[in-house]
C-alpha cells in the first residue's frame, strides 16, 4: 500500500479541504438532533408554569436548530463536490503513474500472465485503489471525529454515560467490522476459489461447445457448472449470515448505548444531579452518533479490497525492466540483419524456441520465414524489436549489436506490421498519428494511398475522423491490416518486419496485400514471417524454420524442386 499512499501526497490539500465539510456535516447532524431534543425538553419544563415559560429564551435554540439544518445540507453538498473532484484527480495520478511504470515492461515483462486478464486486472485494481480516499479515509475520519466528539459532549453532563457511549461506539465502529472480517476471511477465500472454478468450467464449456455437443457431453458439463454454482451460492450464503450477524451487532450496540445513557442519566435526573433537558440532549446525540459510525463496516470491506488491489499492482509494477537500452547513438553500416547462433526460451523452464539459430539478411533483401505454429517465427520479430534479449548468441542490425542501439534509434529503423496490431478506439486519423505525430493531412492520405486504403477511407461517412470503434461493422480484417500497413508507411523505416500479415484474410485480399507490401518495400529490407504460401515465389529467399532451427533455405523454386520440407508444407491447395 505504501507506494500508493505516497502518490496521494500532492492531493493532501484537497483531501483536507474535503474532510472539513464531511466532519462538519456529521457534526451538524449531531448538533441538530441534540439541540432539538434539549430545546423541546427544556421548553416543556419551562412551560409548566407561565412565569418560567415567559422567561425562556427561545431565540438562541431556534436559531441554532435552523443553523444546523442548513449547515448539514450545505456541508454535505460541499463534501460531495470536493471529494468527487479529488477522487478524479487521484485517479489521474494513479493511472499516469501505473502507465509509466508498466510501459517499459510491455510486452515481455508482462509475460507469464494471460495478457487480456492481466490488463483488465490492472484497470480494475487502479479503480479499486481510487476508492481509498472517498470510501475508506473519509468515513474513517468522520467516524473517528464523532467517536471522540460526542462522548466528550456527554462528558460535560454525565461522565459515566460518556464512557459507556465511547465503549459502545468503538465496539460498533471497530470491533464489529473487525469481527466480521475475521469470521468472513475464510469464507471470502473460499468464495474466490469457488467463483474461479465456476468461471473455468464455464469458459471451457463455451470454448468447447462443439466438442461437448458432438460427444453428447453437454449435460455432464452443465452438471459440472451447476455444482460449481451451488458451491459458490452456499459460500455466499455463509457470508450473508456473517453480514447479518454484523448488522445485528450494530443494532444491538446502538440500542445498548441508548439504553445505558438513559439508565445512567435517568438516575442522575431523579436524584437531581442532571438537568432533564440534558438527558434529552444526550439521548438524541447518542442516536445521531451511531449514524456516523455505521458506514465504517463498508469502509473496512473496501480497505480489504484496496489492500489486495495494491498488492497485486505492486507485484506488477515492481517487476524488473526486462530490457534496458543505452543512450549513445550507434552508426549502423547498412540495413542488413544477422542472427548469430541465437538461442532463446521464454522462461528458464520452458522448452527452447530457437536453438543456435543463424540467419543473414542482406540490405534490401526480401526474406520469408516459413514454419508451423509455434516454430519460433514470431520470436524472431520480438527479438529484432528487442522486446526480449536472446538467451545466448547475438542479433545485429546494420552490423551493430542490437544491445548497443538506443531505443528511439532502433524504433526509427523498424516498421512492424503484426497480426495482432492493435487498433485504438479513436478515429482513423488518431490511429495514424500514433505512428507519426507530426504528419500532415496530406501525409496521412499518401500513406493510406500507398496501403491502397484511401478509396475506402474517403468513402467512410466521416472520412479520416471515422471512429474505429464503429469500424467493427465497417472494416474487414483486410482493411484493418492495411491500416497497420499505412502506419508502417508513415514510419518510413528502412527495415520492415511483418508477422503473419495475411493471417485471416481470404485469398483475394491476401494476394493484393502481398503485392502492396512488395511494392512498398522495394529498396528496403523485408523480413516476413508466415505459414501461408502466398507470395513466396517473389521473395529473394525462403527460410523454413523447424524446431528452432533453419530446416532449409533457398529460392522458392529451388526448394520446391528439391521436394523437401517446403514442398511438404505446401501440399495443401488453399
Amino acid at each position: 500500500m505504501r507506494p500508493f499512499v505516497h502518490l496521494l501526497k500532492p492531493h493532501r490539500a484537497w483531501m483536507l479541504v474535503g474532510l472539513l465539510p464531511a466532519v462538519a456535516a456529521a457534526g451538524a447532524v449531531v448538533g441538530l438532533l441534540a439541540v432539538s431534543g434539549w430545546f423541546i425538553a427544556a421548553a416543556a419544563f419551562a412551560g409548566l408554569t407561565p412565569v418560567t415559560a415567559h422567561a425562556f429564551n427561545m431565540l438562541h435554540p431556534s436559531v441554532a436548530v435552523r443553523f444546523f439544518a442548513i449547515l448539514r445540507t450545505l456541508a454535505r453538498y460541499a463534501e460531495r463536490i470536493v471529494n468527487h473532484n479529488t477522487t478524479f484527480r487521484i485517479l489521474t495520478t494513479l493511472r499516469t503513474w501505473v502507465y509509466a511504470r508498466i510501459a517499459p515492461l510491455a510486452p515481455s515483462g508482462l509475460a507469464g500472465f494471460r495478457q487480456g486478464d492481466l490488463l483488465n486486472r490492472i484497470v480494475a485494481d487502479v479503480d479499486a485503489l481510487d476508492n481509498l480516499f472517498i470510501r475508506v479515509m473519509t468515513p474513517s475520519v468522520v467516524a473517528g471525529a464523532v467517536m471522540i466528539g460526542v462522548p466528550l459532549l456527554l462528558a460535560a453532563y454525565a461522565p459515566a454515560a460518556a464512557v459507556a457511549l465511547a465503549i459502545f461506539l468503538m465496539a460498533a465502529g471497530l470491533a464489529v467490522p473487525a469481527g466480521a472480517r475475521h469470521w468472513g476471511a475464510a469464507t471470502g477465500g473460499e468464495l474466490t476459489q469457488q467463483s474461479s472454478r465456476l468461471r473455468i468450467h464455464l469458459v471451457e464449456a463455451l470454448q468447447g461447445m462443439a466438442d461437448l455437443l458432438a460427444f453428447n457431453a453437454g449435460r455432464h458439463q452443465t452438471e459440472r457448472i451447476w455444482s460449481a454454482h451451488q458451491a459458490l451460492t452456499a459460500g455466499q450464503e455463509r457470508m450473508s449470515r456473517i453480514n447479518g450477524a454484523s448488522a445485528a451487532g450494530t443494532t444491538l450496540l446502538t440500542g445498548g448505548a441508548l439504553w445505558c445513557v438513559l439508565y445512567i442519566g435517568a438516575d442522575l435526573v431523579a436524584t437531581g444531579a442532571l438537568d432533564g433537558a440534558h438527558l434529552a440532549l444526550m439521548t438524541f446525540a447518542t442516536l445521531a452518533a451511531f449514524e456516523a459510525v455505521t458506514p465504517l463496516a463498508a469502509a473496512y470491506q473496501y480497505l480489504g479490497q484496496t489492500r489486495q488491489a495494491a498488492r497485486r499492482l505492486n507485484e506488477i509494477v515492481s517487476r524488473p525492466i526486462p530490457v534496458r537500452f543505452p543512450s549513445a547513438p550507434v552508426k549502423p553500416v547498412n540495413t542488413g540483419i544477422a542472427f548469430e547462433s541465437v538461442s532463446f526460451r521464454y522462461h528458464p523452464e520452458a522448452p527452447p524456441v530457437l536453438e543456435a539459430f543463424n540467419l543473414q539478411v542482406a540490405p534490401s533483401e526480401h526474406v520469408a520465414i516459413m514454419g508451423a505454429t509455434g516454430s519460433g517465427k514470431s520470436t524472431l520479430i520480438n527479438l529484432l524489436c528487442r522486446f526480449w534479449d536472446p538467451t545466448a548468441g547475438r542479433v545485429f542490425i546494420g552490423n551493430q549489436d542490437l544491445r548497443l542501439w538506443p531505443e528511439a534509434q532502433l524504433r526509427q529503423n523498424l516498421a512492424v506490421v503484426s497480426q495482432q496490431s492493435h487498433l485504438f478506439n479513436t478515429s482513423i486519423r488518431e490511429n495514424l498519428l500514433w505512428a507519426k505525430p507530426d504528419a500532415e493531412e496530406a501525409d496521412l492520405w499518401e500513406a493510406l494511398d500507398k496501403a491502397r486504403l484511401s478509396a475506402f477511407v474517403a468513402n467512410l461517412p466521416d472520412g479520416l475522423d471515422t471512429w474505429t470503434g464503429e469500424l467493427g461493422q465497417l472494416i474487414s480484417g483486410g482493411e484493418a491490416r492495411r491500416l497497420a500497413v499505412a502506419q508502417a508507411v508513415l514510419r518510413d523505416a528502412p527495415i520492415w518486419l511483418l508477422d503473419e500479415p495475411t493471417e485471416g484474410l481470404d485469398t483475394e485480399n491476401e494476394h493484393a496485400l502481398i503485392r502492396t507490401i512488395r511494392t512498398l518495400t522495394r529498396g528496403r529490407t523485408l523480413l516476413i514471417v508466415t505459414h501461408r504460401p502466398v507470395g513466396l515465389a517473389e521473395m529473394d529467399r525462403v527460410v523454413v524454420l523447424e524446431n528452432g532451427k533453419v530446416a532449409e533455405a533457398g529460392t522458392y523454386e529451388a526448394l520446391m524442386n528439391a521436394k523437401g520440407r517446403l514442398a511438404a508444407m505446401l501440399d495443401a491447395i488453399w
Partner: protein
Amino acid sequence: MVSCMDSISAHTSKTARRWLFRQAWRARGWVALTAALGLASGLLLIAQAALVAGIVHGVFIAGMPRDQLGSRFGLLIAVIGLRALLAWGREVAGFKAGARVRSAVRRALLEGLFHTGPALTRRHAGGALASSVMEQVEALHNFYAFYLPQLALAALVPLAILIAVFPISWTAGAILLFTAPLIPLFMILVGMGAESISQKNFQALSRLSAQFLDLLRGLPNLRRFDRSQAAADKVAAVSEDYRHHTMQVLRVAFLSSAVLEFFSSVSIALVAVYLGTSYLGYLNFGTYGNPLTLADGLFILMLAPDYFLPLRELGTHYHARAEAAGAAEEILKVLDRPPPTSLPSNPPQGLPQPLEIRFRNIRLGFEGRGGNVLAGVDFKLAPDEQVALVGPSGAGKTTILDLLLGFLQPDGGEIVIGGRPLADLDIETWRGQLAWIGQQPTLFHGTLRENIRLGRPQADSQAIEAAARAARVTEFSRRLPGGLDTRIGEMAAGLSRGQAQRVALARAFLKDAPLLLLDEPTAGLDLQNEQLVLEALQALCRNRTVLTVSHRLASIRAADRVLVLDGGKIVETGCYDALMGARGRLYAMITRREGAFDLA
C-alpha cells in the same frame, strides 16, 4: 452522437427494467419476507421511540425515580433484541431473494447457450459470453436483495410513522407530510436524481477505464512507434478532461440529493421549533385540544429522522438498480436470441439403418451476410464411403458439417438419414452415431483419461488405453508424471496443439461411431505431429463413413470421392483422377495454387 447513444441506452434499459421486475416473481416470497422484516423493524423503532420518550418524560417531568420505570427499561431491551434479530433476518432473507433469481437466470442462460450451440458461441468472444453468465448474473443480486425490499419500505415505514404521529399532533404530522410532499412524487424526483448521478459518474469512470485499457492493450504498438511517453501524457490529459466534464454534470446532479437532505433537516428543525413554541404557550393548535406532553414531543422528534431514513437508504441502493439494469441488458442479449438454430429434441428412437446420408437442396443464410451461404446443396454419402469436401475458404464447408452435427438447421431443403429426415430424429441418438474432430480441439479441466472418455463416460480403462494407444496419445502420456491420469488445463501441464489433437483423436477412437466428420484436423500442425495424426487417422477411418474437409492434396487424392463446393453449391463430384481429367473446378483450383505465386 453522444446524445443519440444515450437515448438508445435509455430505450433498451426500459425493456431491461421491465425484465428485472418480472424476474422478481421467482423470488416473490423472499422479497416480501425481507420487506416484512424491514417493516416490523420500523414498527419496533416506533415502539422504541415511545419507550425512550416515556422514560425521559417520567424522570424529568413526572419526577419518577428510575426504579419505577423498570418495566420500560426491560421492554426497551426486548425491543432492541428483537430489532437485532430482524436485522439478521433481513440480511439472510434478502440474500435468498437475490440467490434465487440469480440461480434461475444463470440456469436459463446455460440452457440457452447449450441449446443454441456452437453457432452462437463461435461467433462471440468467449469472454463476453462468460461474463454474461458470471458477472452480469452476480450484478443482479443487490436489486432483489436490497433495492426491491427497500422500495416497499420507503413507502411503508414513513406511512407507519405518519399514522403514529397524526393522532398526537396533526400539525407535526402535516410538517412531515408536506416537507416530503406526496412521497411517491418525491421518490421519483429523488430517484431520478440519484440514478442520474450514479449513472453519469459510472459512465464517466467506465469510459475512462475503457480508454485506459485501450492504451494498455496497445502498449506493444506504442513501443514500436516509440510513443509510450506520449501515451502516458495522453492518459493524464484525457483523465483531466473527463474530470472537468463530469464535475460540471455532478455539480447539478448532486443538487437533487441536497434537496432531500434539506427537506429532512428542515422538517426536523420545524418540528422542534413547533413543539418548543407550543410548550411555551405561544402556539395553541394542532393537538386536538389536548396539551402536548414532553413524552409526545420527544416521540415525534425522535421519529422525524427515521421518517426520511428509508428514502435515503433507497438512494444508496440506486446504483444496485442501475447496475442490475445494465447487467439485464447484457443478459437479454443472450436470452433474447432468435429461436435456436440447433435441432429440436425428439423422443429417443432407433436409427434407420444403413446410415445413408443425403442432402436435398439445402439452403442456409446467416444474419448480416448477404445471400445464402449454402444455395441448394445436394449430395449423398453411402455407408463406409470416404469423401473429401473441398472449396475456397468461406464456401460453407464447415457449415455443412455443422448441419450434420445438428448445430444448425437449414432454412430450406432436407437432410435425410437412411430415409428419415434428420429433423425427426432424436438428436442425442443421432450424435451417438458420429464422431467429430475440428481444427481446435478443446481439452477440459480434468485428467487425460477423463478427456478421452468424453463421449463414453462408462468406458473401462482397457478401452481407454487402447484408444490412447491408437491415437498416439500414449507416446507422450508415457513421459508425463501421472500418465493418462495427469491433470491438464493448468498452465504448467498444457499440451501442444499436436498433442491436444491426438487426445481428440483418442476420443473418436473410443467413441467408435460409424460416421466420422473431420474438419481440417491437421491444419497448422508441425510436420512430426501432422505425420502422427495422419497415420492414426488412417486407422480410424477404416470401415467408417467419413466426410473430411481438407486442404491437403494427399487426403483429397486418397478419398473415394471429392465434393467441390463453390458459391454455395456442389459444383463437381467424382474421384480425384476423374475430376483432374475433366479439367473442371478442382483442376482450376489446384493449378491456380501452383500459379498463385506468379500472379503478381
